[in-house]
């Protein structure tokens, strides 16, 4: 989860998020390279006293500063496209979760199993326990099995919301009248937090998401104990 003074991406809990982190590092490497190059050239301008008053054109340099950026962009585009297609790979989800955004809470449905449904409200700060996370903890968490492919269908009941968990690299808009689908995979147990990511009114910042990732057998026990 996010801690204070967090500058970078959250530690991943999903193989796809790991790949996103590595790609981000790769793109940042290229950006640092360009910044140092251009920064040095700009810095040296402070120490220049001369003007070449006979300068008319420079075909060679124009060619270089056209072709070189194109090559640099290839180094960004190819890994980006690889990851883009990796994110869209077809897989067989074992669990389907439905997430409906409301003003201002999320409701979840597990229709694979006995139609389990519940609402998930943020715990207000004045009711928070001393070890709780302000503006992040919820009353009813989503429980999901780890090391299983999970399908999520996101929609909304009123205005556009967005369901996101940064540690899993998931962000899906919930639009009224539309079902958006994505898949993810959690490779370690624990609690993973997210916050609504599409402005939806007064309490947009106060409708967080919490996933509890547990081993499959505990997930099945939880499902059985929640028969509606």
């Amino acid at each position, binding site marked *: 989860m996010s801690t204070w003074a967090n500058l970078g991406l959250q530690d991943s809990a999903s193989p796809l998020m790991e790949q996103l982190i590595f790609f981000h590092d790769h793109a940042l490497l290229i950006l640092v390279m360009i910044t140092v190059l251009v920064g040095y050239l700009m810095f040296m301008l402070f120490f220049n006293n001369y003007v070449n008053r006979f300068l008319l054109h420079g075909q060679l340099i124009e060619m270089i500063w056209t072709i070189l950026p194109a090559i640099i962009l290839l180094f960004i585009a190819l890994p980006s496209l690889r990851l883009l297609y990796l994110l869209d790979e077809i897989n067989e989800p074992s669990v389907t979760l439905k997430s409906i955004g409301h003003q201002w809470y999320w409701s979840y449905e597990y229709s694979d199993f006995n139609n389990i449904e519940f609402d998930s409200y943020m715990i207000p700060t004045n009711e928070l326990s001393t070890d709780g996370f302000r503006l992040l903890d919820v009353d009813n968490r989503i429980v999901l099995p*780890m090391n299983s492919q999970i399908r999520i269908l996101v929609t909304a009941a009123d205005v556009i919301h967005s369901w996101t968990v940064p540690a899993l690299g998931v962000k899906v808009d919930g639009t009224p009248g539309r079902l958006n689908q994505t898949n993810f995979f959690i490779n370690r*147990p624990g609690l993973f937090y997210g916050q609504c990511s599409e402005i939806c009114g007064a309490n947009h910042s106060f409708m967080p998401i919490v996933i509890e990732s547990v081993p499959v057998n505990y997930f099945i026990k939880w499902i059985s104990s929640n028969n509606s």
Partner: protein
Amino acid sequence: MTNAPATSSVAGPVLRGLHNATIKKNLAISLGLTAIITVAYKLMINDPKKAAYADFYSKYDANKSFERMKAAGRFQSC
């Protein structure tokens, strides 16, 4: 006899091709600096992060981690 003032030879001004010469010098420095910083960034940030993830998951026991969290009462469901 007056003493002749001490003279030292001073390099004359570059009369032709100063722009090209300056560009070549600055290009060499900028490319060198860029290469050093890029390689340093890769070796100090990119590669250690990949290695850290590989190392973490090579030794990771998910069930043990789960039991530890469960014992600490972190989960609502169990």
